[in-house]
């Protein structure tokens, strides 16, 4: 299986890819691994990138979640999975965030379906989405302390 691990090799080997064309110079990193294309963009550009993908035919927002790479920095990776019903293809958008007060723009303007997913990431990871219409806890009780899916949060919870 082909595997391209840098932005240059991805661009070179996938010149026809509609997502890469639509994103233009937004990607800062890219990789094609296990048949899945991952494109990393800058945090402040995520809404622009989402809009560009939507216009290029990647019409369906599937998933948004985060990964905590504690203790390394940048600590958080926010991941979006977006599907094109036209090309029958999936693309993964990623954003890397520093651990100190992580925040990025919300994409609920582009896909209203991101609403619950961003609330979940906020609740469980403590990552803020600016411009979100209702950024409150969704899984945990409103008075909960801490963000359970962070790696420095113990599995048994704080005692």
């Amino acid at each position, binding site marked *: 299986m082909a595997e391209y691990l840098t932005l240059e090799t991805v661009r070179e080997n996938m010149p026809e890819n509609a997502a890469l064309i639509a994103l233009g110079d937004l990607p800062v990193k890219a990789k094609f691994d296990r048949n899945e294309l991952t494109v990393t963009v800058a945090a402040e550009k995520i809404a622009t990138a989402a809009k560009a993908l939507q216009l290029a035919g990647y*019409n369906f927002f599937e998933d948004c*979640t985060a990964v905590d790479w504690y203790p390394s920095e940048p600590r958080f990776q926010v*991941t979006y999975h977006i599907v094109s*019903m036209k090309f029958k293809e*999936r693309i993964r958008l990623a954003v890397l965030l520093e651990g100190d007060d992580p925040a990025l723009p919300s994409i609920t303007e582009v896909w209203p379906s*991101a609403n619950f*997913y961003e609330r979940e990431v906020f609740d469980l990871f403590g990552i803020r989405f600016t411009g979100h219409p209702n950024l*409150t806890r969704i899984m945990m009780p409103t008075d909960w302390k801490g963000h359970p899916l962070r790696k420095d949060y113990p599995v048994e919870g704080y005692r």
Partner: protein
Amino acid sequence: MAPLAAPDMITPDVIDVVADSARHQNDPAQDQTMVLNMGPQHPSTHGVLRLVLEIDGESVVSLAPDIGYLHTGIEKTCEAKFYQQVVPLTDRIDYLCPMTNNLAYVLAVEKLLGLEIPERAETIRVLLNELTRIQSHLVWLGTHAMDIGALTVFLYCFREREELLRLFEAVAGQRMMTSYFRIGGLSMEPPIDWFAKVQKFLKIMPSKIEEYEGLLTGNPIWMGRLKGVGYLSPEDAVALGVTGPTLRASGVDWDLRRDMPYSGYEKYTFKVPTRTEGDVWARYVVRLEEMYESVSICQQALDRMPEGRIVADAPKIILPDREQMKTQMESLIHHFKIVTEGFAVPAGEVFQAVESPRGVMGYYVVSDGTAKPLRCHMRNPSYATLQALETMCKGKLLGDVVAVIGSIDIVLGEIDR
């Protein structure tokens, strides 16, 4: 659990509704609406779903779901388990389709490992997945009809579901939390007469579906409660992330089994039923037709069932045969290693989506090269579909909310995880 709300304060986390009812705060005479709490202990919310409804007379002005009552932190628990120990956790996410959850997870890990699965295992997986789909749709039909008031259908559906659960018990030793799939194959060979039993079930099933149709499809009360209720346009359905039968009932022809095939689905011929009405009735028709298609896929799987192994040839990942373990040193070592330290999975991230009875179910697994997943996230169909509930109910009658909740077939276990 959320603390009980003080009488003068509607829980702060449902701020949409509160903001709405605060519109006329200065002029109480203008305030025609009333806030109604529904659930979490309500027989027709299919679990523990709480809805806060703002109603004007009998019509719904706004609606906010309040979820999290069943949150058990499965994603956090996964991070503390070996890869093979996560399989039993995945059953408990969507307890109506345990096999589909198993499949999505094991496919994701197999993709990370780069494992090739024998064709026999793949075919049995497809067979079991389609049986699971029938089972899940049977529970949906029974409970949905019961919500509307047709009690009899529930008993008919559960009669056939019982047969299916017996089939699951025969292969897995468990009726609901099957955990039958393994990373690299299946846990064991099905019993000798199992395929004959499945064949017998498939023979009778179409006539049973006709029986349900006979009870419901022409029934004037059923049609009156379903037709034109809970309309969802195709644009809204895509924008709100709705998948599965609910999406197809809105006229969007999208089924992962056909469009992005996995586990050998490209080898089967089947129709993807769609409707354009986008109402509760269309969802009912789509699911019934899907049951016929599932029976057909099961039949094809039985007919082409290849011989051979049911696990991949990967001794460092798959537990050895018990007999071999007693006679061969290597098998004993492999068994010891897998059980005590698990197996390392190459670093990387994968997203594997499958078509569950409720829609797109995706597992996002991130590995850092150790024996435990760094992150295991589930994209569950009900979670996204729940966001569309307000669009479907707004401006409509309060009595229809129950019909709409039933029609989107949500499972709270997978919403809260």
